[in-house]
């Protein structure tokens, strides 16, 4: 492996960029390709597929075997609302390997004492997400119940094509939310992708149980996302 390729790979992974190392298994030469970089021909098609599915593998082009090793960014879990559900969810998310962070402008809720060891911002989502924008490798859960806080990040998450967007609230609450988002110009098709009521239907009752249901739904969305994107491409 070219030492420069290794450095490029590690730098891109640190910067949350999707990247692939393409190795010619015949002569051992390799090159680094970023998602969206133009690569001609069959190899380019194979690369595009690999970035979409995240599945590394060997492809044969013109009788030559290439190994494409793709590295997709680790998923980020952004939770709007420093509430009991997020309190329970933070340690579970850490165990499951998700980088979880919480945004809540209500300083009475967002206290470091209640959320030890979790990244916590007590600013408005508008401000925080400008500094650290959402991307397709983010999941967003809005759990404050407050439209003033939840609506903007929901809209931003749909625009950024986050792999998961969920919103807490009854069907009635969600109905009103849908009306507000439509009025804001968010397309119906995008709104339909919001998981609401949030979480897998396991009859969750306590905040901790709801946290399990939400995290399970996030994991499902991430692990099955290639099927979804495959449909989108068809």
């Amino acid at each position, binding site marked *: *492996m*070219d030492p420069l390729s*290794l450095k490029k*790979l590690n730098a891109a992974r640190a910067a949350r960029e999707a990247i692939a190392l393409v190795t010619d298994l015949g002569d051992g030469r390799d090159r680094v390709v970023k998602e969206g970089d133009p690569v001609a021909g069959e190899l380019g098609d194979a690369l595009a597929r690999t970035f979409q599915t995240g599945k590394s*593998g060997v492809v044969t082009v013109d009788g030559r075997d290439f190994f494409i090793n793709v590295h997709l960014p680790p*998923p980020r879990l952004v939770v709007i609302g420093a509430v009991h559900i997020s309190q329970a969810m933070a340690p579970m998310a850490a165990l499951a*390997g*998700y*980088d979880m962070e919480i945004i809540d402008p209500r300083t009475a809720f967002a206290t470091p004492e209640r959320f030890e060891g979790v990244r916590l911002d007590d600013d408005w989502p508008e401000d925080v997400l400008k500094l650290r924008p959402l991307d397709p490798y983010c999941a967003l859960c809005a759990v404050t119940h407050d439209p003033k806080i939840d609506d903007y990040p929901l809209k931003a998450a749909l625009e950024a094509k986050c792999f998961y967007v969920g919103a807490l609230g009854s069907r009635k609450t969600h109905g009103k939310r849908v009306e507000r988002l439509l009025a804001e110009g968010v397309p119906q098709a995008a709104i339909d992708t919001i998981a609401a009521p949030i979480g897998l239907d396991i009859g969750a009752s306590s905040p901790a149980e709801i946290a399990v249901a939400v995290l399970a739904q996030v994991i499902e969305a991430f692990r099955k996302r290639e099927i979804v994107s495959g449909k989108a491409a068809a």
Partner: protein
Amino acid sequence: MSEQFHDDPLKVAEAWMGEGRPVAVATVVETWGSAPRPVGSHLVIDADSNFEGSVSGGCVEGAVIADALDVIETGEPKMLEFGVADETAWRVGLSCGGRIRVYVERIG
């Protein structure tokens, strides 16, 4: 995920390289049947047999490390294949019944 960056083999490889240590990278490039580690998994090895990462969860690492020392010396990449011990000529195998191909190359 944060877990993946903990003791990340490719970061370890870069750090070793920075210290001037010769390093080989072994990568799972193909799997058949039940394989313990997915395609793309890495094991990195230095000339003193220090290693980080995994290509099989322990079944064939010993053999891969032995070949990696060769690769470090010659600079010639190698393709290794492991299956169930009985069915192949290899001395070591995968007890799970799967088959893997591992590409071993030197960095630089």
